[in-house]
Every structure is written in structure tokens, then in C-alpha cells.
């Protein structure tokens, strides 16, 4: 059974339709990539799922329960936790304390929460920064902090919003490693990325948004060939040229 089902979700800002009847599902234990060019509506959709926005139409079903319009904290408590694309560290708290806030979701005991938080710090390579103020971390550290904090809540579904953007190759590899490890520990992941490279090798399924609508949903291998996806990413002209190019074979 699907852990998360998005059914016909529609979100408008005045005249602008940011999400237009989007549907897809996330199977338990899988990694789902949500990609699309800038302004495709990925983060909006994310906000609709995590409760930050209330969609005008459609339903979000998590673990068989309708969570549409529920407040974010209740969705998080049910086990669907997200990170923010624009990092939001709790600036005047230390890195450890940031993660502790997440860890306290499943326990009110400080010792237990501490153990869990330390574990998450280790997993995200943040142990060295433990007592630094979160506001003072470098950007890469802040991104990892986002993840560690979400992880500490013990989520069933972890929704990552562009955690890999701006990382260099080594960092990217480390991040992918972490994601795979999480999946192996039984966490379902939904990963929003602007760039495809990161997510393609590890995703079980990729959903592509463009201009507020879903244009494709498939395994990565087929997505990279999908004409509409290519068009969406490179623009219609390039898409056509690319198509012609492949058809024309040995033109250049």
C-alpha cells in the first residue's frame, strides 16, 4: 500500500495556479524524486503535503488517513517530516539543541532524546559542530542540520527539499550515501531536486512537475528519455533540436 497518496491536489495564489490537479503516490520503503524546473511548483506541493499550505482542491492521504489541511505539527507527529529548501536553522540554539528539538517528538526524556540526537548528528557528519550556534554554521552544515533535525523526529516519510543543491561531488556522494542508508533503515523518502543528476541514480520513481502540472511519473531510466521532460528542462526549441539531433543521428 502507498504510504503517501497525493490526489488531484490544487493550489492557487490568486490567479496563479501553482499546483494543478497533481496526483501521485509514494510506496512504503521507496525513494521518490520530485523534480522540475524552477517555478514548477515543487515546493508549493511540498508545502501542501506538509501542511504549511492548505490546498484548494484534492486530498493528501498519509498512511491511509486524510491529512489535507491538517496543521504541520500534526502531520509531523504522524511521521511525515520535511526539510526546508531555504535552510531555517534555529539560529540562537546550538546544533545539538536544534536536533534535540526534533528528537523530543518521540520522547520527553532528556537522556533518551540526547542519545537520539547524537546519533543523528553522527549520521549527518555534524558531531564536530555539536556545540556551535546553528546560525554560525557554513551553508553545507546548515543543510545537513536540516536533515539531522528532521531525522531525529523518527519519521516514516522524510521529505527532503533540495538538500543536495550546491554540494560538490564528494559532498553529494556522502549525501546520497546517507539517503540510501536511511532507506535501508526503513524510512520512505521523497526528495525534491532541481537538478536531476543527484536523484536519478537512487530514486525508485521520479515525478516531474512543470508549470504547476505533473508531466511525467516513471522510473528514472524512462524519465531521462521523456520528451516532455526534456522539453520542460531545456525549453521547447532545444527540446526539438535535441529530438532532431537524435533522429538525425550523425549530423555532428
Amino acid at each position: 500500500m502507498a504510504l503517501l497518496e497525493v490526489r488531484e491536489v490544487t493550489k492557487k495564489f490568486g490567479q496563479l495556479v501553482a499546483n494543478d490537479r497533481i496526483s501521485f503516490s509514494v510506496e512504503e520503503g521507496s525513494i521518490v524524486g520530485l523534480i522540475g524546473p524552477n517555478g514548477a511548483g515543487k515546493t508549493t506541493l511540498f508545502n501542501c503535503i506538509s501542511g504549511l499550505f492548505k490546498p484548494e482542491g484534492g486530498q493528501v492521504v498519509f498512511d491511509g488517513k486524510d491529512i489535507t489541511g491538517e496543521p504541520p505539527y500534526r502531520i509531523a507527529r504522524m511521521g511525515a517530516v520535511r526539510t526546508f529548501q531555504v535552510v531555517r536553522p534555529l539560529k540562537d540554539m546550538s546544533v545539538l539543541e536544534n536536533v534535540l528539538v526534533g528528537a523530543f517528538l518521540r520522547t520527553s526524556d532528556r537522556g533518551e532524546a540526547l542519545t537520539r540526537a547524537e546519533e543523528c548528528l553522527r549520521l549527518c557528519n555534524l558531531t564536530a559542530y555539536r556545540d556551535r550556534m546553528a546560525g554560525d554554521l557554513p551553508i553545507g552544515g546548515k543543510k545537513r542540520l536540516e536533515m539531522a533535525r528532521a531525522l531525529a523526529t523518527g519519521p516514516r516519510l522524510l521529505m527532503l527539499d533540495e538538500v543536495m543543491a550546491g554540494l560538490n561531488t564528494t559532498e553529494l556522494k556522502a549525501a546520497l550515501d546517507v539517503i540510501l542508508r536511511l532507506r535501508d533503515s526503513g524510512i520512505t523518502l521523497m526528495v525534491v531536486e532541481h537538478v536531476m543528476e543527484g536523484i536519478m541514480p537512487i530514486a525508485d520513481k521520479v515525478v516531474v512537475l512543470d508549470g504547476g502540472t505533473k508531466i511525467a511519473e516513471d522510473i528514472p531510466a524512462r524519465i531521462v528519455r521523456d520528451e516532455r521532460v526534456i522539453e520542460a528542462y531545456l525549453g521547447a526549441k532545444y527540446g526539438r533540436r535535441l529530438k532532431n539531433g537524435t533522429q538525425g543521428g550523425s549530423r555532428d
Partner: protein
Amino acid sequence: MMNTKVIDLKDALWLLLLAVLALLPLVPFVSGSFFGMHVLILVLLFASMAQAWNIIGGYCGQVSFGHSVFFGIGAYGAGMAVVTYGGLPWGGILAGMVLAAVVAVIISYPCFKLTGHYFAIATFAIVEIFNRAFLVWEWVGGALGLDYPVIEEGLANLMWYETKEGYYYCALGLFVIVFGIVRWLESHRFGYYMRAVREGQETAESLGVNSTAVKLGAMAISAALAALCGSFFVQYNLRVDPPMVMSLDMSMKFVLVTILGGSGTLAGPLLGAAVLIPLQEYTRAFWGGLGGGVDLMIFGVLIIVIVIKEPAGIIGILAGIGKSLARRGGTAQGGA
């Protein structure tokens, strides 16, 4: 690794301070000086008030200028128990605390939808409304206020006429209660949640924190403790009327003492009170009688100077001094 140890050291220092405070009245030249005792009592009272405010204003980041309302409700609780109903103050204190918490939740719920200055001004407005409503409300004594009758002194009635020691120990008890509660909150889940809400409400929500509940809870605790302080204030002054307790001036004191001491820290309110209250009382004692308002001018300038020079508060000053001492020590060693 060091975490638990550090906390122990800190708490040990606090316990040491409390022990000193508890023994202070035994030193004859302190207990001999009535005014000195008065200042010490006020320091403890205002430290407790500021600490109560610190819960919602410092830790939770909701800058309320409305705390004199809760303070006043507590004061009226005790005052009415004694004056209107001729009983012991204790029931009134309890009722005042509960009522203050309830009122806090009721008025904060809509206010929390406001942000920044809108919230601040809304809390101004609430103080003014309560002040003026209490002034015309006959049941609570209206503009005449409540004056305590002459009754037996002692702990049962929570009042003393001739000596200050009783009040001093009560103030110390109040201080221990309020600081103890905040110390406990600080190291538990609720404390972390409050700070998380302060630092980023949406982030906290994304981590499963019900920010509204946290804010309302913090406000309720804060209001109840402010009311407790208010009931001590009325027992100390043996009179209550609305301008005394429910005024913007009183509200500003909650905020000023905390912010000048260092908001969001356990020691800040005590530091703030320990500096501001003696300053207020002594400048008035030295210059107030001249009638030129010189004491208040000095006080005003001092507020400006501290705010613009040291936004982290007195605790920031202490930290700065600590750092510069450490640096100096370091260079000295290097030189040798």
C-alpha cells in the same frame, strides 16, 4: 560529554547564591538597615517578575507588554481575599494565579495571530482596557482601591508590620519558586520547544511542535507566576489600586528588567533587577527629594545607554568582561 557537568557547576553556583541570600538577613548591618532590606526585597521581587516574563518574552520570543494585567489580577486576588472577604490571602493568591492563566490564554489566543509591533501595541491596548475597566468596576474597589485592615501579622496572613525579615524570606521563596520553575523548564522538552518557537515558528511546526499550544502554555505559566508576584506585591504594600499594578509603567518594568539583564537566559532577570532596582531606589533617595525629576532623567538616559551599547544586556557585559579577562590572561602568559 561535558554537558551534564557544566550544568552541575552552574546549578552549584546558583545554590551557593541562594545560600548567601538566605543568610543575608542574619548579618546585622543588613537587617539593621530597613531600607537596604526593602531594596533587597524589591530586587528579589522584580527578578521574579522579570523571570516570569522571561518565559514568554525571552524563551518563547513573544514580547508582551501586557504582563501588568496578570500581575494586577494576582494582586487583586490576594487583596480581595483579605479586604473584601476578610479571609487569609492564600486562597486569593491561588485563585489569582489560575484566573491570570485563564485570562492570559483567552486574550493571547487572538493576539498571537499578530506579529511584531502589532502584537506589542495590542498588549498596550489590553493593559489600558484592564486598567480603565478595573477603575470603574465597583466589585474590585474601583478607583478607591483596596486598603488592608489592620490584622494580625505573621505568615498566616502573609504580612508583617515592624520587620522586613518575613517579607524578605517570602520574596526569597518566590524567587526560588519562579527561578526553579524556569530552570526546570529550560532543561526539559517544553523549554526546547519554547526556544524553537522563538527561533522559527514554521520550522518548529515542521518538527512536530504545536507552536500555538507551546505559546499559550508558556503564556499561561508566565501569567500565573506574574500573578504570584503581584500577590506578593500587594501583601507587601497593603494596598492595591489599578494605577499601582495595572499600568503601562509596570508592564515596561517587566520588559526592561529582563531585556537589560539579558532576555532568554536564566541569570538575566536577576542581573537586571540587581542593577536597575537599586539604581531606581537610590537615585530616588538621593535626588528624588529635590523634585526636579533628576532621578528619572538619569534612569531614562541609563536605559538608552544600555540598550544601544549592550543589546545583549548586562549578561552580555559580563560575558564581554570575562572574555577580555581571558584574553588578557592569555597574552600575559604568552608574554611570559
